[in-house]
């Protein structure tokens, strides 16, 4: 019962990601795609800065003791958000989300297979290959 409630919450949170994309598309058309992307990172960054200041045991210093390549995730995020604002007005939110999912599943297979970015010791698993084929078919149908 508790599990079901938590999963319902996660499902609603996932719906929020599509709402985010649905808001970004029209916003980007009006104020420009880069400005729309900035709004996401600016508001999120400021909110998280507040959260960090008031979090019980902030460990910001440990960030800079990590190997530098581990800190590059933040440079990749903007590309994803810019793609969202560019694509949704042209192909719609549904196709945008399915396309992103397709790239994600394909890349996670490659990451696992070649052991890139520190994700190692897994072969290609047939479930995900089949899932990828079905997602591609869905993308073609939409």
């Amino acid at each position, binding site marked *: 019962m508790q599990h079901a409630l938590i999963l319902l919450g*996660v499902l609603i949170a996932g719906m929020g990601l599509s709402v985010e994309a649905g808001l970004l598309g029209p916003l980007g058309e009006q104020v420009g795609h880069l400005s729309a992307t900035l709004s996401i990172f600016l508001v999120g960054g400021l909110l998280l800065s507040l959260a960090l200041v008031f979090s019980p045991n902030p460990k910001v210093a440990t960030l800079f003791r990590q190997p530098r390549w581990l800190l590059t995730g933040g440079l990749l995020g903007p590309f994803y958000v810019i793609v969202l604002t560019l694509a949704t007005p*042209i192909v719609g939110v549904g196709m945008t989300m399915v396309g992103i999912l397709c790239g994600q*599943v394909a890349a*996670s297979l490659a990451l696992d297979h070649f052991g890139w970015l520190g994700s190692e010791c897994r072969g290609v698993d047939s479930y995900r290959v*089949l899932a990828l084929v079905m997602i591609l078919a869905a993308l073609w149908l939409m």
Partner: protein
Amino acid sequence: MFLPIIFVLLLVGGAILAAQSSINGRLGANTGVIESAWLTFVMGALLTFLLMFFFEPVQEATLFSVPKWQLTGALFGVVYMLAIVFAVPRVGTAAATVAVISGQLLMSLLIDHFGWFDNAQRPLDVSRYIAMALLIGAIGLIYLSHQQRQRRLVSQPSECTEAAVDPKP
């Protein structure tokens, strides 16, 4: 003629998201979820500010002149992150991943169907219903794949660590 470019962009965007999840999962495990999410958003803001400052063509509307509800997108990203942080230790990555993808796809099709938030209307038709059935199958397979991975981790706990929580913008 735009379409093929958009397709490539979407696939690359998804691939980049997967790479980011992998990196941030590792970073989050080493430092902390709030710390890694903070770094992700702050670096994203710096980079997009620079891009916007130098490359954005001048627009009539600005972020300060549009209705405020259009600026609330970031809140959904932050809420998503908190939900994942709370849920993953309790229900596992397999179930959480499936719930996220299901919610995401369901809502995206609803937004298209009704044209919410000033989006163009793209009604559900037969081919979209077939696509939905295929996606449900794919989600089931993704669940099985995660479960299989979990079992392998339990049976032989080796040096490979399950990526913790990936903050996604």
